[in-house]
């Protein structure tokens, strides 16, 4: 099975170790993995801030690049960027051709943990990680893609790790893209509820499927000097500690 990686700009630039772990897990599962270096950003920041002309440009570019690939699936270590690909068709309300091209690309694009469980039918990646883990449901993964049970199944099968359910795991972390800097005080007020629950859980690592939420949660954990570390699910599933 051939996978074309949609690595996302955040992972590419800020946390490349997540991309590396994604490749490792997929290869271990027997997939052939390719990466098209022309890819940059899906345009989500523009779309979510109302700049549809700009977002359309990114969407067309993305569709053209990934249409050329003969890969069976497009897999991304991000719920919100995957959700953006699923939103592409809304950008072409008046353009039947682009709309159907967008829909075809969206149909083969998967968030990483959902792809493992629902397509590859893998719930145990033979990972091993010593420590207490908890899961934060990133909003777009949860509510746009309906990814809820998949990551939990995967994390519960990690050797040496103890999984604890986070209270209010499905409540937003307050990131929301440009919202986090347009209204930083509200964003952080929401975030601090999340931080309090993470501390209460006693987890060594708070795991999520989105680099953006992890940047928000991790940025506050770091500022407050917490022992809990933000980790992407790919990093946990690739771990062989």
């Amino acid at each position: 099975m051939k996978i074309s990686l949609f690595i996302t700009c955040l992972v590419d630039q800020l946390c490349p170790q997540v991309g590396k772990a994604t490749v490792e897990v997929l290869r271990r599962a027997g997939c052939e993995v390719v990466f098209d270096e022309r890819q940059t950003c899906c345009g989500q920041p523009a779309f979510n801030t109302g700049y549809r002309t700009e977002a359309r440009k990114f969407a067309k570019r993305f569709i053209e690049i990934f249409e050329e690939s003969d890969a069976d699936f497009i897999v991304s270590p991000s719920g919100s960027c995957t959700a953006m690909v699923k939103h592409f068709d809304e950008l072409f309300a008046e353009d039947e051709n682009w709309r159907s091209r967008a829909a075809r690309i969206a149909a083969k694009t998967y968030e990483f943990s959902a792809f493992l469980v629902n397509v590859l039918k893998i719930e145990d990646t033979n990972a091993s990680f010593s420590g207490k883990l908890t899961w934060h449901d990133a909003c777009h993964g949860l509510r746009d893609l309906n990814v809820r049970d998949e990551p939990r199944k995967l994390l519960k099968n990690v050797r040496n790790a103890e999984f604890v359910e986070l209270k209010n795991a499905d409540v937003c972390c307050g990131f929301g893209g440009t919202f986090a800097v347009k209204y930083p005080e509200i964003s952080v007020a929401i975030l601090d509820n999340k931080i309090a629950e993470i501390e209460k859980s006693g987890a060594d690592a708070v795991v999520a499927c989105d680099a953006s939420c992890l940047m928000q949660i991790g940025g506050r954990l770091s500022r407050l000097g917490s022992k809990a570390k933000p980790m992407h699910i790919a990093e946990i599933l690739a771990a062989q500690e």
Partner: protein
Amino acid sequence: MEHLTAETFDQNARAALADTQLRGALKNLAVTFGERRQAAIATVENWEDLRERARSIKDETLAHLDKYLTDFADNAEKAGAQIHWARDGREACAIVLELLKERDATKIVKSKSMATEEIHLNAALEKTGIDPVETDLGEWIIQLAGETPSHIVVPAIHKTKGQIADLFVEKVGIEKSDDVDVLTKTARRILRTRFAEAEVGISGVNFGVAETGTILILENEGNIRLTTSLPKTHIALMGIEKVVPRFTDLDVFLKLLPRSGTGQRLTTYQSLITGTKRNATDEGPAEVHIILMDNGRSRMLAHPTTRQSLACIRCGACLNACPVYQQIGGHAYGSVYPGPIGAVITPQLVGIGKTKQLPFASSLCGACREVCPVKIDIPELLLHLRAEIAEGVTETSTHKFSEKLAFGFYSFAWSRPEFYKLGTKISRLLQKFVAKDGKIGKTSGFLAKLAPPLGAWTAWRDAPTVAPKSFREIWKSDLENK
């Protein structure tokens, strides 16, 4: 109290976050209403089917709104009600004032109605020397305090018990007590005399049935029953989107609304009013006036995306579920309708010019869409309005130039791999001046001014740095041919 405006949403929100009494009052909102709602929806087997059914009823109604409205008006008139049409809030207020004047009525009781809040009816009445009495306990409290509702269903949710106790001492002259029973009995004693002397009762409407001309109003305190049955004249203000085609449709909405709003299986009272009393010796008002009000609604109807805004049944579930509302409460929105649905309908009702912060006051988490009993895609509507604002479809050419410039630059550079890679390199160079131990701490002064988003981010959160080797570089060197 000074009323906040949507124009200063950012300042209002900051003030709300610093208000410890308000945060205390809001603290249990999510838990209390969230859990009650969960328990209540668990008592129906087919919740998702009900939501689907409700939405399809609303869609059907909105697609043929002209027909259902005229049916409603005809049937209500056949039952003895009088129908008035109001294009906007000013016309609706004028109709009410004229009806009061004709009857020489000055003693008015009112039941809770967001539509009357929307048109600022109380202010219009007060200008002519009439002091209408709010008879819903929460509404009465905020009327005493000179405030506006901060929640669609629970108007005084922002007030603590202590604040209400103080208010009663000051305005009603009772001895201080924070015993809820004492406070409610005091309110009841005073309001009962107001009911007894009232000449006209003014209410809102939850649903209007086209095939019978019936209106349905839901409540828990019995004050609506009194408002609509005791005075000789009843005036009901109804938004044109409140109509449903059939009487049996009410079954669906009666299951959805109380469960979503207050987590009740049913409200304590459901008043179904079909016209006036049939015989002179019957009890009930001799006159029923129903004012059908547009006030910006037909604008929402015109666009296929915004049309769903009119499906709202004002249950308040999206407010309770919203992480932003949970932190700042309703007044910060500076609009009659707060929270996620308020951020969507306010710009459509009053125009986007003075309300353009509201569609951005959301993290787009989607909790509102998840709880909405009529499946309104609020994030989709927020995005639609954001696009109208950012792309200047409406009168908002003043939208931040710096932001437009930034997004223009981003779309130019980041859609070209060579510029994108150059950007990575430049970031690596620049961050050397601010990064320490692989992260960027608090950034202030000149630097924060130079890059406002970085300043806003790092005031509370450390920022990550661009990695020494990007994924695409690692791919080339370590992964591609392995």
